């Protein structure tokens, strides 16, 4: 949709392509890895295709698409540093996520928030969130269930539906049904002992309620409820209690649940400002299932400066999304885009804060970069909602321009 306007995206895309070309090439040359050589060429090409060709085919925001590609490429790179097969798997999930993103964008543009959409979407969202209660959880983390050879988090897949349902109910001023829907979701998450997911979702719902109604009392009450929930969870859940109260353990104590947190922070600090050097350290001691350590790996490999730069790119993505939400002509797309932005923002905050020990280990996956494949697909679906709203805004502005021409010609 941005093809008619001059966009200074060429140098952003070029910098990203060069970054990943070198980042994949260096370890590939060291290990003589064919997978590395292929990724060194394929990843920059995919960044280029996604940033320049895809906007011509589907109505997506080019800046958002470029930023998303850069983040997802970082996820593939971090997995490549652990194992090439993980990198391939991450890339495949990225491809699936792009399809989900396009479908989300189309849904946002075509769907009207009527009962025909809200009821099935709410039912599917509740079903996906409650599915882990019925399945087998061998990973040991809340919200996960086994599916054949792999595990997934079905609740994450419900997020691209959850936001439109909330936005649809709030745009039609159905506050009580929206409250009931949120309460049902939170209950399902708390039954799975997924406190982090419940807090992120609760925070998103509170901010969306405030955005829809402008009611400050509702906002204060909601934030107070969130704080109470966090406090109660910290007192009741063992993992949270350990993170806050247990002192550092000795390296020999490998059974301690506090060990991953220390490794995580050590990773960040050992990278320094510039990084430990790509391929010079061995991040393999971090279990690949610990998806909340992606930011630590990034800082370790590329340094704290690069880590801060990627956080600023996250901020740019959120700013762009909030701009799309603010310029939406109707409540439903506006609230939908704002809900996606808030959810991605809160998840990023939770993931980075737990890495830097500002919060206890929350289990939140860093959007787009984390090894949590279902989270990657879900976040791309959320970005698809923002693309859809951005596309609608572009179309509306073009209609206004044509109407202005109509008025002038009729004068």
């Amino acid at each position: 949709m941005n093809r008619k306007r001059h966009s200074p995206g060429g140098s952003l895309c070029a910098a990203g392509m060069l970054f990943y070309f070198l980042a994949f090439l260096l370890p590939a040359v060291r290990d003589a890895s064919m997978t590395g050589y292929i990724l060194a060429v394929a990843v920059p090409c995919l960044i280029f295709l996604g940033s320049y060709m895809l906007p011509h085919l589907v109505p997506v925001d080019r800046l958002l698409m470029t930023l998303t590609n850069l983040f997802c490429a970082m996820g593939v790179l971090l997995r490549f540093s652990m194992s090439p097969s993980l990198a391939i798997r991450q890339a495949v999930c990225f491809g699936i996520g792009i399809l989900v993103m396009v479908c989300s964008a189309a849904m946002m543009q075509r769907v009207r928030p009527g009962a025909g959409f809200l009821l099935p979407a709410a039912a599917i969202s509740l079903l996906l969130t409650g599915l882990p209660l019925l399945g087998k959880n061998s990973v040991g983390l809340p919200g996960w269930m086994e599916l054949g050879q792999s595990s997934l988090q079905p609740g994450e897949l419900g997020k691209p539906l959850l936001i439109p349902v909330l936005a649809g109910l709030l745009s039609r001023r159905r506050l009580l049904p929206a409250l009931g829907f949120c309460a049902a979701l939170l209950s399902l998450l708390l039954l799975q002992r997924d406190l982090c997911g419940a807090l992120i979702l609760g925070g998103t719902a509170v901010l969306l309620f405030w955005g829809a109604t402008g009611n400050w009392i509702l906002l204060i009450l909601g934030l107070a409820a969130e704080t109470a929930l966090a406090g109660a969870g910290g007192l009741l859940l063992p993992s949270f209690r350990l993170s806050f109260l247990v002192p550092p353990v000795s390296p020999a104590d490998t059974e301690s649940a506090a060990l991953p947190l220390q490794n995580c922070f050590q990773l960040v600090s050992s990278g320094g400002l510039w990084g430990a050097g790509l391929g010079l350290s061995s991040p393999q001691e971090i279990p690949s299932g610990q998806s909340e350590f992606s930011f630590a790996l990034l800082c370790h490999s590329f340094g704290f400066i690069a880590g801060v730069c990627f956080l600023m790119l996250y901020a740019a993505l959120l700013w762009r999304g909030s701009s799309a939400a603010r310029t939406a002509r109707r409540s439903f797309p506006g609230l939908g885009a704002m809900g996606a932005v808030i959810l991605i923002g809160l998840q990023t905050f939770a993931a980075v804060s737990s890495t830097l020990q500002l919060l206890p280990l929350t289990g939140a996956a860093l959007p787009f970069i984390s090894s949590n494949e279902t989270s990657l697909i879900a976040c791309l679906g959320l970005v698809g909602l923002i693309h859809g709203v951005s596309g609608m805004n572009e179309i509306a502005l073009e209609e206004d321009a044509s109407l202005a021409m109509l008025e002038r010609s009729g004068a």
Partner: protein
Amino acid sequence: MFPQLYEVLSLSARYLFALLAVLMVFRALVWILADRRETQKTLHRLPNAGYVGELIVVAGDRGLDTGLAIPVPWEGILGSVRSCDLWVPAAGVRRNHLFFSFQPGQGLLIHPLSGCEALVNNRLLTVRSAPEKTPVTNGSFLQIGNAVLRFCAFAGLAPDTGFDPVHSSAEVLGPRPVPDTAVSGPVSAVRYDSVPPAQYPSDPCPPDGVYPLPYGMTAETPAASDASAAPEVSGPSSVSPVRRRRRDRWEVDWSE
């Protein structure tokens, strides 16, 4: 590759990676600012972007000057608090009074919220009496509290923006909005070209400068007494509705 050579390359590349990361942030920021500038230029050329019409104040309270044109967005809440999409600070208007939504081909659909009332062309609307949304067509009068407003849709939104010929009598319509040529500010004029001229009064502007009152309002009602204080008008070309600007609303909101 020799390990020592790789170590030198990898340690040297750290600085390049940091530089590229900073460059990416810088270019993303420039991109955002460039898009923002372009959007502001576009909005400056299209002052009516995002709006479907105007509510012209025919009679109002102290916060509403007669003749004020309030831009109407596509959808939102009308009420007496500044955070509402349509801010109407008149007595009798609740904090959140009614919900409105523009549908091309139907007009401005309104639905009073619980406990609120509105009059559309002398038809009383409440949650019980009008459970479905009621269309406010082009030229219709909307009375909420002490405020009497007239909806004027922008031209071209749809061929049939719902102009209601039943109420297009000379006693009802009132003065014709000002043509573009007489307007200095960014005010959009409604085009009545598609409406048969026979439905318009031959002299749209009242000679004594008083706006005609709709539907049974008398001089004793508060709105009527305010209407009698309307400024004199000498002809359609010299009347310029004062329009509440987009940035005025935001300045007012932030000042609180």
